[in-house]
């Protein structure tokens, strides 16, 4: 059942992280590939929750900015007329 290296556990199978290859080789060739000959090596790789990604904001085009400016100006022009009757009732 020994797979190579870190391996995703099969769905429905048992997840049993076991220590394997505890004896580290010494010397210059310290970093050799470790292929465990017995036991099961698995890294628990459950799907975690995901965050939504950061958003780079789109810049506004000139015409959009002008449109928004016009709308804001229109709102402000309309407001004094609308605001005046409010205090009466």
């Amino acid at each position, binding site marked *: 059942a020994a797979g190579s290296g870190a391996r995703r556990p099969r769905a429905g199978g048992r997840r049993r992280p076991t220590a394997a290859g505890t004896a580290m080789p010494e010397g210059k060739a310290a970093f050799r590939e470790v292929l465990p000959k017995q036991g099961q090596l698995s890294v628990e790789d459950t799907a975690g929750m995901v965050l939504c*990604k950061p958003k*780079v904001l789109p*810049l506004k*085009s000139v015409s959009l900015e002008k449109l928004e400016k016009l709308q804001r100006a229109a709102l402000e022009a309309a407001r004094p007329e609308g605001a005046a009757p409010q205090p009466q009732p």
Partner: protein
Amino acid sequence: MGLELEPLFQAWSCFRRRKFRQCSDLCAQLLEGPPGGQEADSEYSVFQAAWSLKTRALTEMVYVDEIDMDEEGIAEVILDENAIAQVARPGTSLKLPGTSQGGGPSPAVRPVTQSGRPITGFVRPSTQSGRPSTMEQAIKTPRTALTARPITSASGRYARLGTASMLTNPDGPFINLSRLNLSKYAQKPKLAKALFEYIFHHENDVKNALDLAALATEHAQFKDWWWKVQIGKCYYRLGLYREAEKQFKSALKQQDMVDTVLYLAKVYLRLDQPVTALNLFKQGLDRFPGEVTLICGIARIYEEMNNISSAAEYYKDVLKQDNTHVEAIACIGSNHFYSDQPEIALRFYRRLLQMGVYNCQLFNNLGLCCFYAQQYDMTLSSFERALFLAENEEETADVWYNLGHVAVGIGDLNLAYQCFKLTLVNNNDYAEAYNNLAVLEMRKGHIEQARALLQTASSLAPHMYEPHFNFAILSEKVGDLQRSYTAAQKSEEAFPGHVDTQQLIKQLKQHFAML
């Protein structure tokens, strides 16, 4: 008297210096005076000159480039009489965003809009609301403050701006359109052109504008391309796209103009024929080599068709012609950011800053790029400036949302929690913030809160896969396999290529089979 300027000249000077309000006032004074001083040999009097100048000044005050103006209301989407096929072939329609061949970044990296397109680096009036791909989606999308669409474009922004222009003239409209004898004005081409623009842009009265244009083009014996383009514009606004197409084509035959090509392409885009529009642009480029607006039009179409790599190439072409093109720089910058090259994106955004763009969005992007390019010294000050420059609550919410990511990145989960909370204070419909808060709550072990937040997020933004997927994970953890399965399926619908979702579904199916 000798030292004073001739009033008409003064008004004209104001007009040239774009002091339109002043110009309009001066013209009004001239118009109120006695209509004397006529020169017998001239066809047009001083009175008429002042009148014409005032119409032009009033038009300029509210003028917005018509090529950029586009708003598709819900009624237009439902009652689409121009659709040829119910289901278009892939690569031929703007309404099928899922068919991505361009090798653009996946939704796992780059957020998508409600229509399933990756978010773009630049918004124009037509891209702002995001065209929903199907009717079902348009109805399904909850009407938050930002996604609310006008019922028809006739009730949309045009009409609102029309009323806005009335507010700028408190003592009644300058020209009473119903009393105007249009055929008389149509005889005088110089006055008629200014009058048409006034009716079209300032009054937003398309029907009268069309009447005037029709009379004028008749008077010009159908030989003036300008009037044909104007008639085409009116038809476009009235939704008569095929008629508009005819007018623009006829105008192009008489006089080859870039503007006309752009209008014609706009018609094709509205008819959902992006390939025709692309061909039109490419033919236009043969006649006007290196024309920036045409190249940019091609890039926009590719971007809308989700073909990001071609879009990026054309945006680069734009920059070769015009290295200060804001749209191209912003789009290339955001592409680099989402293809894991924040350092390069940073250079593009810095270029924009050097060019004098100074707003909330730019500083927010600079802050994000700095953070992901590991230039931590500039990150927080950029975000501070972005918060300072934010013009409304939605922009503030966006900045706090991104700051939350910075906090997550440095591992300060308390700060992240507060940032996402502040996002929601500023914009209560921010689905991404709900989702991220849920993830943080889940880390703390508050399952119930996380569940509620995820449900809110998925109802606010059904197009995002994250809330569905997270809900599936959460339900699976607490043993509610049925709910987990339905949520996972929704997640797969939103993002078909998501490996974790597929695995989860496989796992759940095995569970069900064992039962």
